[in-house]
């Protein structure tokens, strides 16, 4: 047992080494070497993660905290650089390194047109990202988590702006960075408050079952708890792209597609979910925050889904879909279905990575074209991509027995248990999801080809480095849900819930969710499945033979197409006033106030020095002479003073 | 006695000084012969073989020739400096010999006589001080000639010597860290019957060797007298024995830098594979001293041969290459060596525990 955890530090260290090698030697290494190093370190991490996971799976496993050194040691606050290995983090380790490895492999082919140093730069960023993400999930306290948190933000910025010569990409990167900063500030304030209130940021100290600080505070829904959880939630909003800080995510599609798959679908954006799941005890003790989380999550889910209905950029659709799915996860967290949320993180990682990579494959084949109106009929040319994409669609739409079905169903069941209204709205969102996904699928792969001749000539199935990850992910998307088959379907039931039980047991005990009868569950599942199937087939039929429309969208559709004008609203209510305030400060306060003061002092000195300057006649000899005379005078004073 | 001097020590040292100076001169003379002979052998020729058997009187003949050449002092040159230049070159070349331990000690007339002129505890620094003086001879001579080529040669020599002195000093710092002493005698003593310093400081030795080549103005670093670019470099205008002084100074420098190298890195007068202490007890101090002296001499001759061997193998550097090598390669390398050595010493002090 000890031996396994002696090597835990290697899991994040390996990607860091990969980052250093690829980053520092980027001008020297050949492309194949970069690929091998970049993917190899992730593979090694993955293998180690598997070992760790297998160890964690043992009965009666106690969370391990491996402390390396004191990171901060000021006054009473002691933050050690420590890793925590338990069920939650080991699960996330698997997702991150596993999906991460597939995406690395995919990238070796997808990015091969980049010049060698840029290729290496790309892989070094990816490795750094994986390192930060691993740090985030392995950290045994909020400070280490925050380091990883900032690290992924940085990598996201670097990777979105990977093609840094394009101004709009740069702007997208900056947008992501700033939006994240707003959220991070909340997180940071939350940590400060936590230190102030509890005197510790270590998960173990805080959430320990027997003598954790949180558990010993009996006050349910106290101000402190609500405040801290809300602040942490602000952080999660920024990182996981919820209303109102979600706008960076669609723009982040400027980065290379594998990056979108890795960062903006599978891993980084789920950091918020992870963080809340990690602090579930605190959230459970603050029902107000829970309500806020659920509402924000649900609103985001619906809101983003409606926008996705009318988007024409293949990656934008997926991006809004991601935002929407993240909303579901938050809904799950908000209603106390923590296991469901984490389950959905996992399945979502599989199918959303699959969809993004499939989209990448399509874009690759289309020579960079991202507009689905100009695609169509690709199923004939790209069989593997088509089939895997199809599987992804089914999975995300929530059709049994694919993975998305189970996880989404669990969240919805949780919502129903909490409040049927939430369930109904959530189900509406699921229908929207099914609709836009099948719209996307149909428009991309069915009907006639609507691109140029040249593109048609160019269209081909992607190489194996792209298709193999697709196939693996498709397989996972199909079977990934089986770890969480609900009890009413299968005896022995929800294995994931069992696995994660030690983490959430405390919350579950407090929440004491009333069980839904199995009949009700059957009905709910049946209704949702049938509705989703109907909507899917409808969307499929409607868009199968899509023809290019020239007519401008009108009315509500136009609002949707323009994403509810959220960017414009932000511009009007935040950016513009800020700008004018800055202008005011610059023109009035700076110029007349501060400058006047400074210049006044300067002018006074100027006058004085003009008088003194006469002494300085530019003759070096004169200076020396003055010095000598001064010395003589001093000594004479010395002599006669006695 | 107004001058409270131990006269015996005085005489002893005087004899030693005379022996070392004349010895260096003779060796320098025969180095010229050796140079010609080695050059010939390496080039499949026969070399000087007329004056005396195997031409061993050749250096005498050369010296005589130089003496009888016409003395030329150019007009418009500073006469005093023109004469001072070669004198300084010769002087500084000879002064290094003062701190080199030529042997352990001999017992004569009932006195233990150390075979070292001055065992100063800053021996290495002394060597550096004297070597840094050496550049004056060249610079002054070159400038006083009032000749463009001479000036160029002098400038080159000066910048070259300054550049390489840095790397030389840095390479030795690592050695000093290992040995913990500045005295050449103690350094040699530390290597007696132990590992020679070359095994502890291979990189340092390499840097020192290259710098020694540069300091002696030997090929491939003989830019100061690059014949095909600068005519004769700083000694273009010199003739007769003043030229001879410059040439002699070069060979003395070679000889003494070989001696320094041997003392620093190759155990000085240590006889390899033999326990010197026991040897001295068995065959008597004096005989041991003679054997040790011969051994030192053998090592020095090997280095002299190395100097010549390199000279007839490697072509001259270009000026920018020379400066690049000095500043961009040797100095960083020496610093690197220093850091590594420091790290290893720390490790060793902690008993190889990290």
């Amino acid at each position: 047992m000890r031996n396994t955890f002696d090597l835990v530090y290697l899991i994040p260290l390996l990607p860091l080494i990969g980052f250093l090698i690829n980053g520092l030697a980027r001008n020297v290494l050949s492309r194949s070497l970069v690929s091998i190093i970049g993917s190899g370190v992730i593979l090694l991490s993955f293998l180690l993660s598997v070992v760790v996971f297998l160890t964690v799976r043992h009965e009666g496993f106690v969370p391990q905290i491996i402390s390396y050194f004191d990171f901060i040691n000021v006054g009473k606050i002691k933050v050690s650089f420590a890793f925590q290995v338990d069920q939650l983090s080991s699960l996330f380790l698997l997702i991150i390194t596993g999906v991460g490895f597939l995406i690395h492999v995919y990238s070796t082919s997808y990015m091969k047109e980049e010049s060698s140093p840029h290729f290496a730069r790309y892989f070094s960023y990816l490795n750094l990202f994986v390192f930060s993400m691993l740090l985030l999930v392995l950290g045994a306290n909020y400070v280490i988590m925050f380091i990883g948190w900032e690290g992924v933000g940085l990598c996201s910025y670097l990777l979105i702006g990977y093609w840094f010569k394009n101004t709009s990409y740069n702007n997208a990167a900056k947008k992501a960075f700033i939006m994240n900063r707003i959220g991070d500030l909340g997180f940071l304030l939350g940590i400060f408050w936590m230190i102030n209130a509890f005197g510790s940021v270590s998960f173990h100290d805080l959430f320990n079952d027997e003598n954790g600080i949180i558990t010993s505070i009996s006050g349910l829904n106290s101000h402190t708890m609500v405040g801290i959880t809300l602040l942490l939630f602000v952080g999660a909003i920024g990182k996981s792209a919820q209303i109102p800080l979600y706008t960076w995510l669609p723009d982040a599609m400027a980065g290379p597609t594998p990056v979108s798959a890795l960062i903006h679908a599978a891993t980084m954006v789920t950091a918020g979910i992870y963080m809340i799941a990690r602090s579930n005890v605190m959230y459970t003790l603050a029902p107000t925050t829970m309500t806020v989380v659920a509402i924000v999550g649900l609103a985001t889910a619906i809101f983003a889904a409606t926008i996705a209905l009318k988007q024409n950029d293949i990656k934008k659709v997926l991006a809004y879909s991601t935002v929407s799915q993240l909303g579901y996860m938050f809904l799950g967290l908000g209603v106390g279905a923590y296991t469901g949320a984490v389950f959905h993180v996992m399945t979502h990682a599989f199918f959303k990575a699959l969809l993004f990579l499939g989209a990448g494959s399509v874009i690759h084949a289309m020579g960079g074209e991202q507009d689905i109106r100009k695609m169509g009929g690709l199923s004939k040319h790209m069989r593997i991509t088509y089939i895997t994409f199809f599987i992804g669609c089914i999975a995300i739409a929530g059709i049994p027995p694919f993975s998305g079905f189970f996880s989404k169903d669990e969240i919805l069941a949780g919502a129903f248990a909490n409040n049927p209204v939430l369930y109904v709205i959530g189900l509406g969102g699921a229908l929207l999801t099914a609709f836009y996904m099948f719209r996307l699928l149909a428009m991309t792969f069915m009907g006639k080809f609507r691109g140029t001749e040249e593109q048609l000539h160019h269209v081909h199935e992607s190489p194996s480095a792209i298709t193999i990850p697709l196939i693996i992910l498709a397989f996972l998307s199909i079977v990934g849900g089986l770890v969480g088959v609900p009890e009413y379907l299968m005896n022995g039931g929800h294995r994931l819930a069992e696995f994660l039980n030690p983490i959430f047991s405390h919350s579950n005990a407090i929440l004491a969710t009333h069980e839904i009868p199995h009949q009700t569950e059957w009905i709910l599942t049946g209704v949702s499945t049938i509705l989703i199937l109907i909507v899917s087939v409808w969307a499929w039929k409607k868009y199968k033979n899509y023809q290019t429309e020239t007519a401008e969208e009108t009315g509500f559709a136009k609002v949707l197409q323009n994403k509810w004008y959220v960017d414009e609203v932000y511009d009007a209510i935040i950016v513009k006033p800020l700008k004018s305030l800055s202008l005011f400060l610059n023109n009035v306060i700076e110029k007349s106030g501060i400058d006047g003061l400074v210049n006044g002092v300067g002018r006074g000195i100027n006058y004085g020095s003009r008088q003194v300057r006469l002494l300085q006649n530019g003759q070096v000899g004169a200076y020396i002479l003055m010095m000598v005379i001064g010395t003589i005078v001093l000594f004479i004073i010395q002599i006669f003073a006695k | 006695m107004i001058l409270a001097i131990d006269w015996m020590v005085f005489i002893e040292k005087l004899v030693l000084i005379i022996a070392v100076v004349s010895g260096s001169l003779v060796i320098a003379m025969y180095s010229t012969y050796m140079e010609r002979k080695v050059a010939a052998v390496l080039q499949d020729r026969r070399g000087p073989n007329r004056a005396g058997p195997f031409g061993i009187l050749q250096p005498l003949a050369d010296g005589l020739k130089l003496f009888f050449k016409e003395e030329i002092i150019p007009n418009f040159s500073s006469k005093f400096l023109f004469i001072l230049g070669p004198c300084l070159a010769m002087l500084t070349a000879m002064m290094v010999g003062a701190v080199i331990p030529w042997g352990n000690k001999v017992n004569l007339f009932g006195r233990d006589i150390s075979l070292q002129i001055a065992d100063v505890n800053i021996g290495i620094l002394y060597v550096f001080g004297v070597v840094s003086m050496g550049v004056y001879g060249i610079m002054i001579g070159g400038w006083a000639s009032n000749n463009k080529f001479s000036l160029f040669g002098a400038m080159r020599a000066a910048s070259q010597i300054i550049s390489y002195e840095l790397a030389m000093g840095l390479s030795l710092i690592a050695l000093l860290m290992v040995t913990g002493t500045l005295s050449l005698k103690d350094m040699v003593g530390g290597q007696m019957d132990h590992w020679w310093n070359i095994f502890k400081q291979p990189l340092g030795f390499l840097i020192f060797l290259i710098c020694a080549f540069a300091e002696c103005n030997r090929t491939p670093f003989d830019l100061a007298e690059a014949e095909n670019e600068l005519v004769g470099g700083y000694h273009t205008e010199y003739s007769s024995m003043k030229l001879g002084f410059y040439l002699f100074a070069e060979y003395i420098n070679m000889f003494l830098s070989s001696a320094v190298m041997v003392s620093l890195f190759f155990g000085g007068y240590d006889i390899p594979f033999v326990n010197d202490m026991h040897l001295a007890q068995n065959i008597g101090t004096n005989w041991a001293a003679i054997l040790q002296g011969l051994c030192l001499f053998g090592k020095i001759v090997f280095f002299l041969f190395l100097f010549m061997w390199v000279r007839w193998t490697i072509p001259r550097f270009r000026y920018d290459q020379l400066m690049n090598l000095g500043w961009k390669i040797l100095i960083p390398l020496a610093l690197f060596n220093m850091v590594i050595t420091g790290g290893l010493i720390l490790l060793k002090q902690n008993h190889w525990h990290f």
Partner: protein
Amino acid sequence: MQALTNKVEVVSREPLTFWERMYLPAILKGMAITFSHMFKKKPTINYPEKKRPFSPVFRGLQILNRDEEGREKCTACGLCAVACPAEAITMEAAERQPGEEHLYKEEKYAAKYEINMLRCIFCGFCEEACPKDAIYLSETFAPSNFQRKGFIYGKDDLLIPDPIKEPEAFAKARGSRAAHPEGHGNEH
């Protein structure tokens, strides 16, 4: 581009590898090469003690020939002076007086015959031009001298020793070409 000969060696202009940039291996290799030359056979010889055989067509200092009876063969026709491209030959003719038959083979002889060895290019045209085989190029070369006028060879420097009075000196001066009295220049 097609190479004209098979001696062309294509020079690699690739950037140096790390080992090559260290230079040390190359230096050691060079040193080994020079060192190995210490044990090679020396092509040089100790000159005055040992001499290399001259090639048969070697052209050294001119020699004025005598016949078997020791008479000068030269008849001062001046053809050699005309043929000389460097104009190194000067001569003055004189008539043979009675009683001098044992000295000169022909009725006319060269009273003064000078070759400026500083001008002579040892082309051998004089030998070819001579109708009497009176001049030929030997296998010796000009010794050094301190003064220019020492290089202007007169008749006493050029004439071969008398074969009757000093047969050994004559044979020595004739050199290996004595075996071919006709000389090589006149073979056509």
